[in-house]
C-alpha cells in the first residue's frame, strides 16, 4: 500500500501546499459549523419603498428607546424583495418577520396550493379583533385568496386625472366640465397640435400607450371590467372589456387619436411631460409625490380632477397600485409581528406622515375626516389633494389577485397591441366596428389563461 507520506516525499501532486489549503478549508468549515448563531434582536421587516423605510426607521428607533418593540427595518430594492421572498417561501432561505408586498408580486406569492402560501392567514384575527370593518373593504381584495386574507392593506390608491392647468387655460377649455370620456375626447381633440410646423402633432391630451398596461387596467376597472371576478374566474373576454378596449384603441391611433406615449418613471417620459407633449395623466395618490420629487418644474402648473366617467353619472375613479404588510409563516414570534403590523398600519401619526411624505391616503376609514388631508398643496396649485382623493375612495373598484394575474396581463397586452395593429392595417378606427374584433382577441387571450389554470394541479385542488 502506498502511503500518503510517500506521496508527499515523491513530489506527487499532493504537495504540502495542497495539504495546508485542504487543512485550512476543513478548519474553516468546522469553525463555521460550530459557531453559535447570532441571536436575533427583535423583529426584522423588509420594505421596498424608500418613503416607507424613512417613515418606519424613526418609529423603530422610538420604540427601541422606549423599551417597546425591537424592529430592524431593511430597505430592499423593488426587484430584490420579490426574489428573496419567493426564494424564502420556496427554498426556506432567511425571511424577515414582516414584509411589505406590492400588488405586482401578489401573483407569485399566491400561486401554488393555499396551504403552501408562505404568509400567515390573518382572516380570523381581523374578524375577531373587529379590524376588518375599520379598513376600506375593497383594499383587502388584492390580498384575499379563496376568501382568506393574507395581509393588512396599506392604502386605497384612488386614481384622478392630473392636467396641465397652464396649457388647458391657454387653449380656453373648461376641462372640469368634461365629466365623461366621450366629452373629454371631443373637447380635448383641440389640444392635438403641431407646435414646430413639421406636420406632426407635438402635443396630445392624454398620456397613454398600448404598453402602459397599468393605466389600461385602471381604465378597464373604472368601466366595471377587469381580469378576474371575485372567485378568481377569468373575465378577460367580458363585453365591457371589449367595448372599453375598442374605445381606447381609437384614442391610441387613427384620426381621432388623443393619446401620446410619455412613460412614467423614465427620464424621457419626464422630459416629454415638461415639454407639454401630454396634457393629462392618470394619477394615483402615490404618484403625486413621485412627480413632485421628479418634476419640481411643474409646481403650480398641475391640477387634479375626478376621472371622466365611461357613462354619464358613472364612476369617476379607478385604482392603481397597492401594498400590504404580511407575516411570513417562518417568523418565530407571530404575535409580536401581528402587534407591530397593527401599530404601523393603524397609527394615526404614521398615516399623517404617509400622506404628507408620499401623498398616500390611509385605508383606515376613521382617519378620513382628519384635517391634515385638507391641507392645500402648492404643487397642485393649492388644491386640497387629500380631500379630492378621499371623495373618490369609497368608489374605488375592487380588483382580485390571482396566481394567473401575470398571464392574464400578458394576454391583455397582446390584445391591445393586436387591436391597434388591426385598426391600422384595416383603416377601421370606429369603436363600434372594433368591438367584435376586440371580443375575439380577448376570447383567445382568456382561453390561454384558462389553459394555464387547467394544467395547474395546485389550483385545481383549491376548487371544492
Amino acid at each position, binding site marked *: 500500500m502506498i502511503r500518503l507520506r510517500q506521496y508527499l516525499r515523491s513530489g506527487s501532486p499532493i504537495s504540502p501546499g495542497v495539504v495546508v489549503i485542504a487543512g485550512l478549508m476543513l478548519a474553516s468549515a468546522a469553525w463555521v459549523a460550530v459557531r453559535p448563531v447570532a441571536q436575533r434582536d427583535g423583529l426584522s421587516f423588509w420594505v421596498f419603498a424608500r418613503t416607507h423605510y424613512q417613515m418606519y426607521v424613526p418609529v423603530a428607533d422610538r420604540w427601541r428607546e422606549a423599551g417597546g418593540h425591537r424592529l430592524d427595518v431593511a430597505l430592499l430594492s423593488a426587484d430584490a424583495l420579490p426574489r428573496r421572498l419567493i426564494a424564502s417561501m420556496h427554498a426556506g432561505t432567511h425571511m424577515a418577520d414582516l414584509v411589505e408586498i406590492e400588488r405586482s408580486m401578489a401573483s407569485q406569492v399566491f400561486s401554488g396550493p393555499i396551504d403552501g402560501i408562505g404568509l400567515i392567514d390573518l382572516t380570523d384575527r381581523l374578524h375577531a379583533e373587529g379590524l376588518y370593518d375599520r379598513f376600506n373593504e375593497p383594499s383587502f381584495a388584492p390580498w384575499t385568496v379563496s376568501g382568506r386574507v393574507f395581509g393588512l392593506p396599506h392604502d386605497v390608491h384612488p386614481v384622478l386625472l392630473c392636467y396641465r392647468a397652464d396649457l388647458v387655460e391657454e387653449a380656453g377649455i373648461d376641462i372640469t366640465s368634461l365629466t365623461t370620456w366621450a366629452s373629454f375626447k371631443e373637447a380635448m381633440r383641440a389640444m392635438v397640435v403641431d407646435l414646430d410646423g413639421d406636420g406632426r402633432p407635438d402635443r396630445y391630451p392624454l398620456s397613454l400607450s398600448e404598453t402602459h398596461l397599468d393605466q389600461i387596467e385602471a381604465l378597464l376597472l373604472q368601466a366595471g371590467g377587469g381580469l378576474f371576478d371575485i372567485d378568481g374566474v377569468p373575465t378577460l373576454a367580458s363585453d365591457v372589456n371589449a367595448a372599453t378596449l375598442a374605445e381606447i384603441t381609437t384614442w391610441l391611433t387613427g384620426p381621432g387619436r388623443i393619446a401620446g406615449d410619455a412613460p412614467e418613471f423614465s427620464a424621457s417620459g419626464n422630459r416629454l411631460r415638461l415639454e407639454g407633449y401630454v396634457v393629462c395623466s392618470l394619477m394615483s395618490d402615490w404618484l403625486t409625490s413621485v412627480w413632485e420629487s421628479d418634476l419640481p418644474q411643474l409646481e403650480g402648473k398641475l391640477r387634479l380632477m375626478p376621472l371622466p366617467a365611461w357613462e354619464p353619472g358613472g364612476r369617476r375613479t379607478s385604482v392603481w397600485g397597492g401594498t400590504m404588510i404580511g407575516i411570513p409563516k417562518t417568523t418565530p414570534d407571530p404575535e409580536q409581528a401581528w402587534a407591530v403590523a397593527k401599530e404601523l398600519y393603524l397609527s394615526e401619526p404614521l398615516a399623517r406622515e404617509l400622506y404628507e411624505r408620499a401623498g398616500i391616503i390611509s385605508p383606515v376609514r376613521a382617519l378620513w375626516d382628519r384635517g391634515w388631508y385638507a391641507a392645500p398643496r402648492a404643487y397642485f396649485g393649492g388644491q386640497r389633494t387629500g380631500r379630492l382623493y378621499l371623495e373618490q375612495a369609497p368608489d374605488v373598484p375592487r380588483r382580485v389577485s390571482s396566481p394567473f394575474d401575470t398571464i392574464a396581463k*400578458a394576454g391583455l397586452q397582446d390584445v391591445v397591441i*393586436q387591436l391597434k395593429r388591426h385598426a391600422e392595417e384595416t383603416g377601421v378606427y370606429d369603436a363600434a366596428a372594433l368591438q367584435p374584433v376586440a371580443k375575439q382577441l380577448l376570447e383567445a387571450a382568456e382561453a390561454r389563461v384558462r389553459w394555464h389554470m387547467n394544467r395547474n394541479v*395546485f389550483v385545481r385542488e383549491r376548487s371544492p
Partner: protein
Amino acid sequence: MNHHAAQSRAAYLFLTPFLALFVVFLIYPLVQSLWLAFQQTHGPSITRYVGLDNFKSIAVDRLFWKAFWNTAVFALASVCIQLPIALGLAMLLNRPDVRGRAFFRLIFFSPALVGLVFVAVLFGLIFEKRTGLLNVTLHAVAGFDPEFPWLQQYVMPALIIAALWLYAGFNMVFFLAALQNVSRDLLEAATVDGAGPLRRFLHVTLPAIRPVGSFLVLLSLIGSFQLFELPYILLGGGGPDNQGLTVVMYLYQAGFDAGDLGYASAIGWTIAILLGGFAVAQRYVSALDER
C-alpha cells in the same frame, strides 16, 4: 497488494475530487432536472407527479413555440448577418494599406468589453420614441417620424442590431487571427495564375479560415440559444406581444416567476432534445458535404 493495484488505486484517488464535483454539480442536477420534468412544482418543496403532462403542455404551448421561433430567428440573424459583417470588417482591417488599423480594431472590438447589460441600457435610450437618439437624428435629417416605435413593433430587428453592435467586433477578432494565418504563398500563386480578388477569396481564403468560421457559427448558435440579458433589460421582459421572448427567458419565467420548476425543467430538456437533433442533422449534412 501488488504494485499495479496500488497504482490503480492511486489513479482513482486522484480522480476522486473531479468525479465528486462532477457528480455533485453536474450529474446529480441533471438527473434531478429530468425527474423534475415529470412533476408540477410550487418551488422545490411542493411537488406533484404529472407524468408526461409537462411535455404534452409544451407541445401545445403557443408561448413556448413563439419563444423558440424568436430565438431561432435571432440565431439565424447572428449567423447570416453578424458573421459576414464580422468577416468583412476583418478583411478590411487586415489590409496593410488601411491606415490606423490597430485603432479601428480596438474601436470595433470595444463594445465587447462592456457587456450585454450596458448594451441593452444604451440601445434602450437609442431606440426611445421621440427622445431616442435614432429617431431624433432621423427626424432632424430626413423628417422621419419621431414616434417610430422601434421597441414596440420592430423588436427583433432592434435586438439583432444591438447584438450586431456588440458581437460583430468580437467575432472580427477571430476572423482577423484566421486571416493572418492564410498562406501568402498560396495567395500569390493564385494571383500569378490569374485569379481575381473574388476567386482568391472563394478558393484560397475561405477554405483556409473555414475551421474558425465553423467554430464561430457554433459559438453564435449556442450564444443565441442562451440569449437572456439583452431582451430582458432592453424590453423589460418578452416585450410587446412577446416579440422578444427567448426560450431561456421563458424557462426563467416558468421556473422562477411562476415557481413551476417542473415545467421549466421540461422546457430545458425539450430545448436540449431539439438542439441535439439539429446538431446531429448538421453533422450528417456536413459529412455528406465532405464526401
